[in-house]
């Protein structure tokens, strides 16, 4: 099954769905689902192949190569699976919206370009697909006009800066080594001086850090996530932002190679150590900003920025545990952030686009399945022992502690406790508490929205209880990068410095929960009561006024808000205004009247003559 | 306080009597038309705190007597002047049949709850009062309960006694 066929199906499918859309929307949706599912199946049966290279096109004399290895298979599986789920999710969500053909075209285009990035074997096709992905994302973010266009602009400007940085790196590589094929580059790079390696790493990591929203370059993410249409949010937050992670892995471990990348720089100022510290800062500050948010999607956006830090810390630490923790966390984070965005989408679908956390409440009575999905989603996000988030965080913490980076581990752990606060705020404001009057007759989410949620919730628990399956694949990725393999068993990691056995934990929790349930059964059966029958010091419950959500962590807000003003965004805005005024200045010089230009020439000549006369006398 | 203010009062209003009540209280009785101007005069002369408005129902003389009690806020960190020690009890009386009076809110805003209470318990209507809604009572009463002609025993036997006992006691009775 050659890779070109795969890409042709992916891109062709996108265009065909657009055309089918002209005929009837039912066929278009069916075809879109068919395409994405077939992509998943095709990639699944690509499992074994390693390093199959196939030149499919020549561009300016350079061979464009497609190749696959375990790393690309892993990311491709995740991209296609999440792409299929979000297409299924958007069937209902986009039912009565305008320009849905354009939406489906762009969604499938984004999925296809991501697959292109993953399977590209040389840097030129990598760059082409990267640009294609950025542009289709920009069009999708600014899908529902108004503020979305501003968010899209912010996104596209920053990703263009990233792509230009990458282009500089690609050209410098081509200049020194005449070839852009990654495999050959990996061998030739050995001869490069450490200074050049450092330059390469920095240039490429600027592009990937912008895409992965590392701390100083993260400002596009909250606006983009908040304004993008929610089904696309799943793809955007799940795998698209994690293309930066794929890029980091590519540049640090595939092209530059692990040994060289890990001892660039000296002592405390090693490249990977600074990158780890950037990741640690990215964990802490966005997590505390997420606690302040009152908009559901903004809260999830800041949490996605925070969780990105874990992945960076994982791969930047440079041990096999850290690397597998980082990659596994990329997959886990993709699963539960897509699940949480789908829950927000289901709520929006049922309440007519309501996103403000303070005007929702008590939805557990009306949408129980969405509640279960959100509960599993936030338990994965927090890292509760039976969910997949816990396993990847356990790996990262273990390596941080044993390698002797306690302050990095401290930043990561504080991120988790901050994460609990906004996770509970998210689920409490939407699902618990009093149901407002106007949402009394809200029905369940439609099945086409619930199906992806059920699959993802199952995935969270499945990977949480039996982490051996994904960890085995990740271990082979680690060994392909030259790391020592950790002995992965079905139930976790078995190593002398501390084993993880999730099946023991699962069995213990299961038995003990049954015991606790029996203890509750000792007492007489409880009478279930309506939400109005609750303690109010003897008074009757005021309608729609007995729900506490505004300023939920008020004592904490007062303490942390002064430190959390978004300095970086403000700095970028000031910088942008400064450049704009600079441009205005030059515009005033080139006014476009010929007279001015003649005057400039005359003046300049006069100046030259004057200098000539003055010095020559 | 006594002389300058007393002369000012007697000169400004006719039909006003001023006599010292007990230790440091002065009771002033004025007719109902001049009440507001007396209040504003007293307020400008330092008695800027309206402590209370209450009402007495003289049913034999067919009149309600409204009592305004004024006192002075103590100036910050100054020694007690004798003015601050004295309270002024301003009395006026209105006819009982049509209980009608003007509200003192323009001069003292904090008169609002007192007048609401008097309206609820005595049935005196105050013009210019923003909201004469019920303040304490749970239920409507044909004659306001604090009036002398409100017969509590009859009210209790009408409202509470007919309610039957429940369970064993009811069977015995």
């Amino acid at each position, binding site marked *: 099954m050659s890779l070109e066929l795969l890409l042709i199906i992916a891109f062709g499918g996108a265009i065909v769905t657009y055309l089918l859309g002209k005929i009837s929307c039912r066929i278009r949706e069916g075809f879109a689902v068919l395409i994405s599912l077939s992509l998943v199946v095709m990639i699944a049966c690509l499992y074994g192949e390693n390093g199959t290279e196939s030149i499919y096109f020549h561009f300016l004399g350079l061979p464009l190569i497609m190749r696959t290895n375990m790393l690309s298979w892993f990311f491709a599986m995740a991209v296609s699976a999440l792409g299929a789920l979000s297409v299924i999710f958007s069937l209902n969500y986009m039912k009565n919206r305008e320009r849905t053909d354009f939406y489906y075209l762009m969604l499938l285009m984004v999925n296809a370009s991501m697959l292109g990035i993953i399977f590209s074997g040389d840097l030129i096709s990598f760059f082409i697909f990267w640009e294609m992905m950025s542009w289709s994302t920009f069009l999708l973010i600014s899908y529902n006009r108004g503020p979305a266009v501003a968010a899209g602009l912010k996104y596209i400007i920053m990703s263009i800066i990233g792509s230009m940085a990458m282009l500089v790196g690609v050209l410098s590589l081509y200049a020194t080594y005449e070839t852009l094929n990654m495999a050959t580059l990996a061998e030739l790079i050995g001869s490069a001086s450490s200074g050049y390696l450092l330059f390469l790493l920095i240039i490429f990591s600027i592009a990937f850090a912008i895409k992965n929203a590392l701390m100083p370059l993260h400002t596009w993410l909250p606006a983009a996530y908040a304004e993008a249409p929610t089904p696309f949010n799943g793809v955007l937050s799940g795998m698209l932002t994690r293309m930066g992670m794929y890029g980091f892995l590519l540049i640090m471990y595939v092209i530059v190679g692990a040994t060289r990348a890990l001892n660039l720089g000296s002592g405390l100022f090693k490249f990977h150590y600074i990158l780890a510290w950037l990741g640690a800062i990215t964990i802490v500050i966005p997590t505390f900003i997420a606690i302040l948010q009152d908009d559901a999607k903004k809260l999830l956006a800041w949490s996605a920025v925070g969780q990105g830090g874990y992945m960076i810390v994982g791969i930047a630490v440079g041990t096999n545990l850290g690397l597998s923790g980082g990659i596994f966390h990329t997959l886990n984070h993709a699963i539960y952030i897509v699940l949480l965005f789908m829950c927000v989408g289901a709520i929006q679908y049922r309440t007519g686009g309501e996103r403000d956390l303070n005007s929702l409440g008590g939805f557990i009575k009306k949408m129980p399945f969405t509640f279960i999905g959100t509960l599993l989603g936030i*338990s994965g996000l927090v890292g509760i022992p039976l969910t997949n988030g816990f396993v990847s965080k356990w790996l990262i913490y273990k390596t941080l502690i044993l390698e002797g980076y306690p302050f990095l581990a401290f930043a990561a752990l504080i991120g988790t406790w901050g994460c609990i606060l906004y996770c509970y705020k998210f689920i*409490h404001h939407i699902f618990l508490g*009093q149901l407002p009057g106007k949402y009394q007759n809200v029905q369940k989410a439609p099945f086409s929205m619930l199906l992806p949620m059920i699959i993802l919730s199952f995935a969270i628990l499945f990977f949480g209880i039996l982490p051996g399956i994904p960890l085995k694949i990740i271990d082979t990725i680690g060994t392909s990068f030259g790391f020592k393999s950790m002995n992965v068993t079905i139930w976790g990691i078995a190593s002398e410095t*501390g084993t993880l056995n999730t099946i*023991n934990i699962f069995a213990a*929790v299961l038995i003990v929960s049954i015991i606790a349930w029996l203890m509750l059964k000792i*007492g007489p059966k409880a009478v279930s009561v309506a939400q109005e*029958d609750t303690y109010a010091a003897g008074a009757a419950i005021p309608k729609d006024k007995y729900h506490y959500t505004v300023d939920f962590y*008020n004592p904490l807000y007062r303490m942390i808000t002064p430190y959390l003003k978004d300095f970086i965004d403000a700095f970028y805005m000031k910088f942008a205004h400064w450049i704009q005024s600079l441009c205005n200045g030059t515009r005033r010089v080139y006014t476009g009247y010929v007279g001015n230009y003649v005057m400039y020439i005359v003046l300049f000549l006069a100046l030259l003559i004057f200098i000539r006369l003055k010095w020559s006398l | 306080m006594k002389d300058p203010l007393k002369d000012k009062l007697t000169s400004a209003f006719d039909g006003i009597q001023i006599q010292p009540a007990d230790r440091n209280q002065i009771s002033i009785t004025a007719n109902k038309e001049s009440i507001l101007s007396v209040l504003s005069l007293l307020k400008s002369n330092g008695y800027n705190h309206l402590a209370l408005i209450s009402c007495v129902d003289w049913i034999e003389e067919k009149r309600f007597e409204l009592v305004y009690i004024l006192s002075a806020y103590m100036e910050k960190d100054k020694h007690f002047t004798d003015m601050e020690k004295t309270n002024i009890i301003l009395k006026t009386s209105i006819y009982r049949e049509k209980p009608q009076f003007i509200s003192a809110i323009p001069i003292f805003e904090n008169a609002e709850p007192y007048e609401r209470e008097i309206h609820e318990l005595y049935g005196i209507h105050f013009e210019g009062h923003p909201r004469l809604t019920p303040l304490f009572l749970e239920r409507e009463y044909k004659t306001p309960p604090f009036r002398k002609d409100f017969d509590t025993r009859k009210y209790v036997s009408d409202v509470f006694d007919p309610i039957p006992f429940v369970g064993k006691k009811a069977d015995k009775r």
Partner: protein
Amino acid sequence: MQMIEMILSPLLALIIGIFFLGLSRKIMARIQWRYGPPITQPVIDVIRLFSQKSVSHGKLFNLGIIFSLAGSLVLVLFLPLAQICPLSGSGGMLVILYMMLLAPLGIALSGGESANPNTSIGISRKFILALGYEVPLLLILLALMTHYKTISIVHIVSIQQNTGWAFVSLPLLLSGIAYVLILPAILGIRPFEVVQASQEISSGPMAEYGGPFLALATIQHALSLFIGIALFVNLFLGGAGNLLIFFLKMLVVFVLVLFVNAALPRLRIEQAVKYLWRWPTLLAFIGMIIVLIVRR
């Protein structure tokens, strides 16, 4: 053998926890010159609560309290109780850290479901206080783990058996003192009783708990008392050879903490977090620096 341990350690924890509850009410009474209830009063309360027909606000209301009690019981399995440590080989300190947030999350979910602002305020205070004492606690635990270069608590206890208590070993002295300063916050008692402040927010998350729910909540509270003190004894006072010494060490620590509980009034939540983020964090930070220097 392992199966017997699996049953024995939660049972032991339950008995000791409920005994501690009864003891705390007795000691508090004696400090206030009162005669005080019998030691077995919590047992009487639990029996009475189980016989009452309570009110429930939905399935999550039931599942939440079950989930929180299960979380505490499972956490006990990870704690070494003087040679009894059933689940020592599956995750070590990191699992304990993460298990400690199961119980509050369970009560938070069921409290939230009871649709009462008092419970929501109680829960938000609980998480803020947890964030408050988690900052120094994480620094202390990381200092311990980097000092002993292990993440399994059984290993830490065995090292302390032969090299003496961590509390008195020089590099960890400051961390030990910081831990003592935040112990009342971890146990949720008087100076930091902001969560179940029965006067202000009508006992916070427990406002809507009736008969059996309140019984499970009391048992969970007893267990969390046990866990907080057992963790301290294991990490800093070197665990114990046999059960009796372990129990005695816990008793001494508990009585001392009770005196603090009896003497101090309840802090406001801002004061609590300001205090927690100032002195204990400073001590824990310096302790961490010392551990890193000693490690170099």
